[in-house]
Structures are given as structure tokens and as C-alpha cells.
């Protein structure tokens, strides 16, 4: 029975099926609302789904100077680690594998999809991919500093509620929020939340931080040689990443909202995810142009890390 339950968790909710569907839907409304912001009709909400299935039906070309096994294996590893990440983040109290969740684990799990893109691109042997790999790595370096500061701040805030002083456990963070209200309504957390809103598009690789996959400059960077099913999986991973990152935002800052009805809670969480996507990705995409890679790095290590640091200091002195 437990095994069956676990399989349901892994394959259906909140694992593979649910996160794929919801992630693609999130990507769809992102495109739709972006179009509406630009006074266009825009593609149907199902568009990313169509794209995904279309790519599944295309031929897979492996360039002759690619390292075959890495090239083909990378997308699957990236997708699998994203799904595992979803299983660790609590959704309205439902945590598929509770007790194993830990923000450091999630921090490292989140780098694996990017690593998969980098090593896959690098294995394709294209110079465009080489440039893309370099830029993607700089993007990871950029957001990692603010992200760890944010996580430490949240860990301290929630940990103080328990006797340990700090906590790294998402479960504990969720419990703390259930008891004391969402973290976002705590003054000291607001800078961290703002910083997190910048980290999300950078991690996902969305405008204005999509330096690694800039299709107009470097032909989609690491993805340049991918076609067919592997590309479809990368596109799916991209969509799921949006879901994971917004879900992480919800878990860190807006958790613990409870109405008593489970399905309503889930819907609220998903709604929050959609709103966060709108704010930090669609709106940003509509009003900004792509940053240069060194500007992005500077922005993250000064302004955004500064915001997160402010939050950490405020938490530390107990505001």
C-alpha cells in the first residue's frame, strides 16, 4: 500500500504527470498573458503542450562530433532531478517524502537541471553551445549567492520558532508558517522575498536573465544542436522549472495558508504559483530587454545579494 502510494506520488501527484501538466499550463498562461500585455491575441494556452508533442514526433539528430551518450542522457537526468525536487517541496501540507526535504538538498538538486543543460550542450561539440555553457554557468554563479542568503534568512526565522535556533528543513519551515502566518508578512522577510523574485527568472533562464539561451545572439546556446525528443524534454524541464521555483517561493514565503479543505489549499497554492509567475516572469519579460552577462552578474552580487543580506541581518537582530 505504501509502495503504491509512493508510486502515485512519483508518477501522478505531485510527480511526473501533475508537474508536467501544471508546468506546461504555467508556461502557456505565461505566453498568453505576455501576448495580451503586448496587445496580441497570443497563442492558445495549450501551446507549450503542442510544442512538446510536436518535438516528440521529430527526428533526433546527433551531430557527428558530439559525445553521444552524454548528449542523449543529459535531458533525462535533468528532468528526473526536477521531478525529485518537486516531491520534496510541501504543497499545502502534502509532502510526498517529508523529513527528507532540506533546503541545502534542494539548493543542490536545482543545479542539476542546469548542469544537465550545460553538459549536454557541451557534449554537442558546437561553439555556440560552448558560449552558452559559459553564460549559463555565470548565471548559476550569479543567483547562487542571493539564494543561499535567502535560504539562511528563512532558516533562521523558522528555526528560532523551534529550540534548534536554525533549521534547514522545509517541513519545519512549513510548520512555523502554519503556526505564525506566512513569512512574507514578517517585515524582515520582505527584502528576501523581493530578491527571490529576481532569483526565479534567473534560475529558470527567462527574460531578462536568459543570457545562456539567447536565441537571437547565440542560437539558443547549449540547446543549439538538440532536436526531437531530447529537445522536447528540455522544453518540458524548462516549464517544470517554472513550477518548481514558484512552488519553492510559496514554500519559503507563503506557506501555511490553511482553509481546512485540502483541495482548496492546493488550488490556493497553485494560484499563488501562477501569480508569482506572472509577477516575476511575464511582467519582467514584457518590460525588460535581455541584460548583458556581466551586468547580470553585477546586479545579482550587489543589489540582489544586498537585499537578501539585509533580510538576513534583520532576522539576525530579531526584527
Amino acid at each position: 500500500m505504501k509502495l503504491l502510494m509512493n508510486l502515485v506520488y512519483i508518477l501522478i501527484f505531485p510527480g511526473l504527470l501533475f508537474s508536467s501538466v501544471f508546468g506546461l499550463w504555467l508556461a502557456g498562461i505565461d505566453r498568453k498573458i505576455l501576448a495580451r500585455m503586448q496587445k496580441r491575441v497570443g497563442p492558445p494556452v495549450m501551446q507549450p503542450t503542442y510544442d512538446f508533442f510536436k518535438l516528440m514526433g521529430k527526428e533526433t539528430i546527433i551531430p557527428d562530433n558530439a559525445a553521444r551518450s552524454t548528449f542523449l542522457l543529459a535531458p533525462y537526468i535533468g528532468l528526473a532531478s526536477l521531478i525529485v525536487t518537486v516531491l520534496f517541496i510541501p504543497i499545502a501540507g502534502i509532502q510526498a517524502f517529508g523529513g527528507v526535504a532540506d533546503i541545502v538538498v534542494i539548493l543542490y538538486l536545482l543545479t542539476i537541471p542546469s548542469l544537465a543543460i550545460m553538459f549536454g550542450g557541451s557534449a554537442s561539440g558546437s561553439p555556440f553551445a560552448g558560449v552558452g555553457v559559459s553564460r549559463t554557468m555565470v548565471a548559476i554563479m550569479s543567483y547562487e549567492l542571493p539564494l543561499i542568503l535567502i535560504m539562511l534568512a528563512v532558516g533562521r526565522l523558522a528555526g528560532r520558532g523551534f529550540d534548534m535556533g536554525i533549521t534547514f528543513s522545509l517541513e519545519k519551515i512549513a510548520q512555523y508558517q502554519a503556526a505564525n502566518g506566512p513569512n512574507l508578512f514578517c517585515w524582515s522577510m520582505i527584502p528576501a522575498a523581493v530578491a527571490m523574485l529576481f532569483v526565479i527568472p534567473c534560475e529558470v533562464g527567462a527574460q531578462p536573465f536568459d543570457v545562456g539561451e539567447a536565441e537571437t545572439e547565440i542560437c539558443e546556446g547549449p540547446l543549439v544542436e538538440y532536436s526531437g525528443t531530447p529537445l522536447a524534454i528540455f522544453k518540458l524541464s524548462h516549464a517544470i522549472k517554472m513550477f518548481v521555483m514558484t512552488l519553492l517561493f510559496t514554500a519559503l514565503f507563503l506557506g501555511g495558508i490553511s482553509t481546512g479543505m485540502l483541495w482548496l489549499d492546493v488550488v490556493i497554492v497553485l494560484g499563488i504559483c501562477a501569480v508569482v509567475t506572472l509577477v516575476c516572469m511575464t511582467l519582467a519579460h514584457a518590460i525588460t530587454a535581455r541584460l548583458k552577462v556581466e551586468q547580470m552578474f553585477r546586479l545579482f552580487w550587489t543589489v540582489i545579494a544586498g537585499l537578501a543580506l539585509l533580510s538576513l541581518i534583520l532576522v539576525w537582530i530579531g526584527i
Partner: protein
Amino acid sequence: MIQHFPILSIMVLFLGAFLVVLVGRSRIARTAVVSAAVLTSFALMVALIKPVMIDGQIISYWMGNWAPVSGYAIGIGIEVDALSLFFGLLVSLAVMLSGFYSFKYITQDDSPDLFFTLYLMLAGGVMGIVLSGDLFNIFVMLEVMTFAAVALTAFRSWNPNAREAAFKYLVVGSLGSTFVLLGTALVYGQCHTLNLAQISGLLSVNGINPTMTFAFALLFTGFGVKAFMTPFHPIAADAHAAAPSSVSVLISGVFTKTGVYGIIRVSYFLFKSMGMSSMQTGLVFIGCVSMFVCVTMALNQHDFKRLLAFHSISQIGYILTSLGLCSAIGIAGGLYHAINHTLFKGLLFLTAGAVLYATGTTKLEKLGGLARRMPQTAALFMVGAFSISGIPPFNGFVSKWMIYQAAYEKAAETGSIGYAFVTVIAVVTSVLTLASFVKVGQSVFFGELPVELENVKETPLSMRIPMWIMAALCLLTGVLPGLMQQYIINPAVRATLDYKGYIDAMMGEGYAAAHLADTVPLAEAKYTFAGAWDPAFWLVLFVIVLLGVTVAMMIGKSGRGAATAIADDKHDTFFGGEKNTFSQVGGGDLFWGFKYNFRRYLNVMGNAHSGVVNDYVTWGVIDLALIIVYCFIFM
């Protein structure tokens, strides 16, 4: 019977060293002697796991049966507690695997018999240090080890950099030995004994006077030189890059560990200075500086092995930091990282050696696309790279995670936000580590294959087997942290924090109680994780998900769009429509966005590593002076 094992495991290496000179001309005899020596040494260490690690026995052995007379140690003692055995196991494992690798690897050089003599001398010296219970004996073994390492650095006569690296190494290394000897002399002047156990007892009775503060600073800095902590790191980079790869494994995985071992013994056991928060801050500071400076230096390198060398010290920085935290979980994380560092850094150096063996160069600019010619080496490199960057489920993740948690718990415990920044620096260093291995992956194993390397072949099987063993150990230590902690780490942590048994075993029952009565324990040898982490579970989950994803994707494929790789226009790399010409992106061209923002810092650091040996000596002396001043103010 069992108390003879430690001395045997040292002597068998030295014996092998002398035998190799006699019979080493023939390849078979050489292989047999060296294998026998390293295997015996390793087997003896493994045989000690049960009594020492699990039963908690402490083995003491007086050379020539010179037992203490009326409470004074006069002979040379060999003593093995869990901490010594921990390092002994590490050393003998690395020596064994790297030795097997060398049999084939060293055939490119002349006089392999002399190589193995020096190799076994180095190994014996290191074993001598970690198992010895006598301060002067440690110094002698330190010198044996340093000389063997210097000679091995200069061994590759065809490498133009080898002699220069060896000379710098000798000068700065002997500086370190000088510090250790002076410290030993001062300790002897105070305590009139050289036995570690007795010194520890007497020092806590006599208290720390200014001479002893001075001696502490000297010993600390001396062992710091052996661990290549920050101001001494340039020589490490030179030496690693010039030495044959199997020796680099020893220098980075084993030689530096003696420095770490020395620092643990000096500051936890002899002087018990780690209880002071100022000393903790000092060691953590040194660790953080080592970590960050070396990782940024590594990002700037153009040579595979030199890059690995800088990373080696960066990882030593992690170990020093976590030891400086002086909490049980910190020490556990540090020791765990010590094992992991030996394994993954050994693996990476061996892959670098394989690349050198196959292509004849380690310059990042001249390599590329080797994954198509050496697929196994590329896979092994990726295991090593993921381990060192702490990607789960490999071993680096577990130890780094323990270190983050230790640092942050320390911050919560002391209320000082500074330790929170230690966590931040550690995480950022980890990311930069990942970055430089992405750079190596892109420049060496992926990208395009230069025309000159078309005929490169995979390395021979005898070189791949040790690498696969190391890779398997990287995964195993990452997946089974529970077992590792129970049988290896926790006994060593307990031995670090509770040294009374060590003193009693050496000086007779009741000596510790009489001398250490009023010593407060440094920390409690218990720890819990703030979260839970079960890598085996995670791995299973990951595999299930991976299978599920693959199956789901395969359903839609239904035989169409078969994956093919043929050399024609269609399967050529997209090049904006042009015919594909060789254009490898790699080496120094990567991470421009990072380098541009850090350009001033990187310029300053690049100029500071001037390559002039006088500068390095000056840094060393200034560092010693600073440490002395710090100790006098805060100790």
C-alpha cells in the same frame, strides 16, 4: 600480536623502498615488491578497524620496549587511536590505488625503480607521521616525506617546470619543517619529553606560558605549511602540476592530510587551544581565505593539473574551516570531507594523468573533444567533478552539507552572524568549484577534437581499474553516509574530542585523570542533523523517476526518428550555414561575465603569485608573524 601492526605497516613500506632499489630493474620484480608492500600496509590498517574503530581499543607500542620510567617517557612511542587509524586508512588506501596506477603510468619515464623507491619512502613517511606518538619522530618523518615529495616533483626530467617547482617546494617546505622543529625544541625545553601523550598531560598541568604560546604558533604554522594553507599555496600549485599524476594524488590526497592531522593534534590534543573562541575564529578565518582565494585562482588557470592543485587547497580550506568550528558535527564534516577529498581529488588527478598519458599535454587550450576517444575517462572525470562540486548523490555533497550545517549551527549557538557568512562563503566556493569543472569538461572532454588528437586511444586497463575503484568509492561514501559515520567518522570524532584514553594508553592508567582533572571537554561528541538526508533513498527515487521519464518518452517515439550519427552535412554542427571549421570554446575564454567583474581582484591575485621564491618565503614569514601576534593577543 595486534600491537605490532602499526609499526609493521610503516616498516613494510620502507622495506619495500629499499628492496625496490635492489631488484627494481626487472619490471615483474618491481611490480611484485611494490604491490606486496602497499597491499600489506593496507591490509594491516584494515585489520585494525575492528579493534580500534569498533571496540574502541587504543594500541600503544614502545619501540625497543622502552616503556616509561617513573612517569617519564624515554622511548619512541607508536600509538594508534581512532583518529590516527582514520588517517592511516586514508593514506594506505590512496597509496595502494595510486601505486597500482603508477605501474603502467610511469613506463613513459626512465628509471621507474627509483620512482618506486621514492614513492614508497613518501608513503612510509606519511604513515609514520599519522601513527607516531612522538613529536620529534613526527618531525623526522615529515622531513622524509618532504624530501621524497620534492624529489618526486623533480622526477619528470622532461617536464621543463619540474625542477623549478621542486626548488620552490624545497625552500618553502623546509621553512615549514624549521617551524615544526623550533616548536618541538621549545616544547621539549618546557616539558622535557617528546611523547605526545605526556606533553598533553604536562601542558594542561603547567598551563600555557608565553613560550608555549610561541611554540603553539610555530607548530601550527609548520603543519599549516604541510597542509598548504593559504599563504603557502603557490608552491602546492607548482608541485602538483609538475609531479607525475600518481604523485600528485599523494601530495594532494595524503601529504596535505598530514598537515591537517598535525593541526588537529596540536590544537585539539596538545595545547587544547580549540576550546577558545578566538582560536576557533582564527582557524575558520584561515580556512575561509584558503577556500575562496584558491578557488578564484583555479578559475583563472590554463593547465588541467594546476587547476586541480588550486582546488585541492580550496578543499583543504573546507576541512580547516570545519575543524575550526570545534563542534562535533563540524569535526565530523571535516573528517568526512578529508576522506572525500582524498577520493575525488585522487580520481581527478588520475584522470588528468590519463589525459596526459594519452595526449602528452594538460594545457586546456590544446585539448578538446576527448570524450569521443576516451569515453571511460570522461565518465570518470564527471564522477570526480560532480563529487568535488557536491552534486548529490556523490560524496562531496554529504560532507559539504555537514559543514554548512555545522557553520550555521555555530552561528545560531554563538549568536554571531560571522559564522553565517562562513556558510555563504562555503556555498559560493562550491559553486565556483562547479564552474571550474564545467570549464575543464568543456575544454578537455567535450567540444571539438583537435586534428592532432585524432589518434588518441583510451588508457590501458591497468590504469583504469584504480580509477574505477576510486569512482565507486566516491559513490559509495556518498550513498552510505550512515555506515561511514557509524564505523569510521564517529570513532574518530570521539577520539578527537575525548583524548583521555589516548593518554592513558600511553602513560599508564590514571595518568590522564591525574593531569587533566580540571580540563573542560571541548565539545560534546554527539550531533544530530537539522534535516534528514538519506542518499540511498534519494538514489532509488532518482532511478525510478529516471526510468519513468525514459519509458514515458519512449512510448511516443514508436520507432521513428532513429538517433543516428553520420558524417555528412546533415549531421554536421550548425555553424550559421558555413562548413564546420575547428573552433573550440574553452580554456581561458569561459566565464567572461564573472572574470570581468572580478578583473581587479584577479589581476592583483595573479600578480601576487609572482613565481619568485623570495616572495613566497616573505609571505610565509609574515604569516608566521601574524599568527604569533594573534596567538599572543588572544591565547
